């Protein structure tokens, strides 16, 4: 109980940025196109040049507090470089970035306290045991001893690693190592979590555990920046999707927005129980037929809320037996492939 209270106090202090070297105060800025919640991650023309290679090219976006942004892009698109700049490890060569109002260059140490970073590779110290490993990182994050012990136990239990606490990390499987790395990133209850491929190398059960944990974190006000190639994960978790290619931001929006913008209005599919004996009632001006036969009809409409009931009424009038009417599912993969190919 005492540990729980200690941890809660620590988490609250962390969330409020009350640590001596991270007393961030976020100014309230309203972003009409995105969210009315203050942005926790802000980038403006963020650029990184390595000699002749522009790894990140004038990236500008915001992520509001409590949101999940999924950053997608092919290999070498600049995702890891972006995360490293936002984590205050790499210095931008142009533009700026702020985490909870703190500049990633000027306030680098504070920023590193405000964030948790699951790196591309787990990178554990294989001769250590889970508790001492987490204790080491907790100490570097200035967590009190009892707090880091309690937090470590809580997270190890949450990710089913408590029973393996006496084993060396070198004995862990790939998935267990990935979970340990995630726990390390979450240990100090950071306000922003950068997750680079969080479920790679995990079995479906573990991957679900991690996705659930991400969803829970979002629910508790954490902001999450997710780099992934798993489009299902991105679609199911992210509030916003950003796609970059060759360092440039080529798309930004909610999954639904991106689908609408890039794939056009949704396709509706109507199926009949028996073949239609009369011609299809096309409702001139209300729908555009994509394809049709005696059993089914695919169409686009800008106004499904009025067109669909009208179509059903017409079909009823001519005695057609409607089996199903549904929106054809379109995946984020279609959007992504359209963007990057």
């Amino acid at each position: 109980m005492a540990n729980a209270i200690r941890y809660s106090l620590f988490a609250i202090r962390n969330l409020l940025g009350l640590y001596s070297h991270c007393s961030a105060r976020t100014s309230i800025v309203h972003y009409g196109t995105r969210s009315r919640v203050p942005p926790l991650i802000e980038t403006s023309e963020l650029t990184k040049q390595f000699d002749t290679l522009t790894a990140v090219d004038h990236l500008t976006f915001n992520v509001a507090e409590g949101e999940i942004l999924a950053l997608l892009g092919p290999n070498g698109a600049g995702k890891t470089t972006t995360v490293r700049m936002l984590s205050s490890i790499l210095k931008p060569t142009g533009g700026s970035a702020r985490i909870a109002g703190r500049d990633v260059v000027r306030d680098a140490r504070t920023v590193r306290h405000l964030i948790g970073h699951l790196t591309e590779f787990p990178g554990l110290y294989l001769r250590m045991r889970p508790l001492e490993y987490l204790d080491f990182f907790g100490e570097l994050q200035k967590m009190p001893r009892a707090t880091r012990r309690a937090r470590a136990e809580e997270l190890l239990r949450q990710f089913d690693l408590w029973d393996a606490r006496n084993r060396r990390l070198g004995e862990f499987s790939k998935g267990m190592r990935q979970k340990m790395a995630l726990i390390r990133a979450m240990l100090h209850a950071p306000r922003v979590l950068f997750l680079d491929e969080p479920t790679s190398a995990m079995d479906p059960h573990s991957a679900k555990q991690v996705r659930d944990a991400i969803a829970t974190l979002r629910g508790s006000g954490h902001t999450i920046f997710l780099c992934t190639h798993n489009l299902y994960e991105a679609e199911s978790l992210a509030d916003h999707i950003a796609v970059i290619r060759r360092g440039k931001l080529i798309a930004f929006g909610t999954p639904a927005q991106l689908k609408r913008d890039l794939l056009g209005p949704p396709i509706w599919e109507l199926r009949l129980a028996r073949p239609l004996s009369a011609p299809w009632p096309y409702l001139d001006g209300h729908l555009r037929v994509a394809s049709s036969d005696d059993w089914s009809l695919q169409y686009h409409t800008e106004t499904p809320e009025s067109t669909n009931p009208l179509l059903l009424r017409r079909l009823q009038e001519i005695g057609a037996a409607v089996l199903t009417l549904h929106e054809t599912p379109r995946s984020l993969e279609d959007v992504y492939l359209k963007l990057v190919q």
Partner: protein
Amino acid sequence: MLTDALIITRREVRDSLRDWRIVAPILILTLIFPWIMNLSTRLAIAFVEEYNATIIPLRLIPFAVMIVGFFPISFSLIIALETFVGEKERNSLEPLLDTPISDASLYLGKLLAAMIPPLFASYLGVAAYLIGLYLTIQYVPEWIILLQIILLTTMEAIVMVSGAVVVSSHTTSVRAANLLASFIIIPMSFLLQAESILLFWGQYDVLWYILAALFVADVLLIRTGIRTFNREEILAREIDELNLGYMLRTFRQFFIGARFSLVRIYRDDVPRLLRENRLALATVLAALSLALIGGWFFASRYPLPAELIGSIKINPEMLRQQTAFQGNSLLPRLDVGTIFFYNLRSLLGFAALGLFSFGSLACLPMVTTMGLVGFLFGEARLFGAEGIVFLIAALVPHGIVELPAAILATAFALRAGASIIAPPPGVTAGENLLRALADFVKIILFVVLPLLFIAALIEVNVTPQILMWMYGR
């Protein structure tokens, strides 16, 4: 800073002590090797005592103490070399760099971690060896020699570790770090040989000078390490690529700027460079003054024997011999080209050595020369006013041009060598070195070369005429 550093140190030391590849050799060198050395020492003593060579054991034991102490610290190099680059290869460095710990704490923590286990093993080995000697032959070392050896071992460990950590934080693979480690191992092996000779020779006082030099090297290497440590460079650099194109472009930018202009170089660049390098110039001048005074006092301490003074006569025959000298030895022939290239070669050769010694070796030819000049003036005193006047006549006419040229070349070489110690904020060690090299080349080409040429002309055509005019009749 230290608190954070110690968090890193504790973890790393614990990790090292769990690695049997580190622990096993340390244990062997700490417990078994001293025992073997003890046995060897007793056998050696028994052997040499048969021939009444009692001085040999007295000199052998301090040497053996040094060896027993040095072997465990050689492991510090292995640990230190992989501190950063090894972690980078195992992908465990980035999580560490993501934490709020400062660069200096991280660097210091790793430095201590690489040093503590081997150094502790070294002290333990020395203690084990000496206890064994006391129990077997009741040998008790002189405390001052023991202190010197312990301090030397510690300083050597710091030099090796700080040098290796610098290497480790600037390479991208353990293999590359191991290859670069020869820059540490080779000078260190020379140093050990020198120390061994001094110990056998019984010149214990000289060890203090070596200690002082090692202390300076420690400070410089640690400072270099902290100033040049860069999180970004460690993670961003994926391959150890020698980017000649970039280096040439950067050098050209510093050397020529936007457009080459000889007028601008003499009107703006040279005065600016002299202003910017006044600290290096002052350092060289101070070193030369000390060398001059040192040479003078050395001459007072070791005057030429009176009978030799009586035998040296400045006469036309001696001068003719000197001016007709055709250079069948280390000294150059007396013609303009030879003298010019001889001086230039010395300055450039030692400037190159300066790059590997933080600039210190660049000062060597000028310090030696000025020490010699001081010594010559000191000895010339014994000949009375005539001796002093002779030296002034033989050195000043060309020296008045040659000396400023040599001082400039030395100061700029010193700065080039020292440029990697503390690059200004936002500038990498490589960029700072390229800038210092560009300045050095500029000064050499546009100031030193013309001055050396004029000095050589005077030395060949004017100085001998003055001497012949004064003494050749």
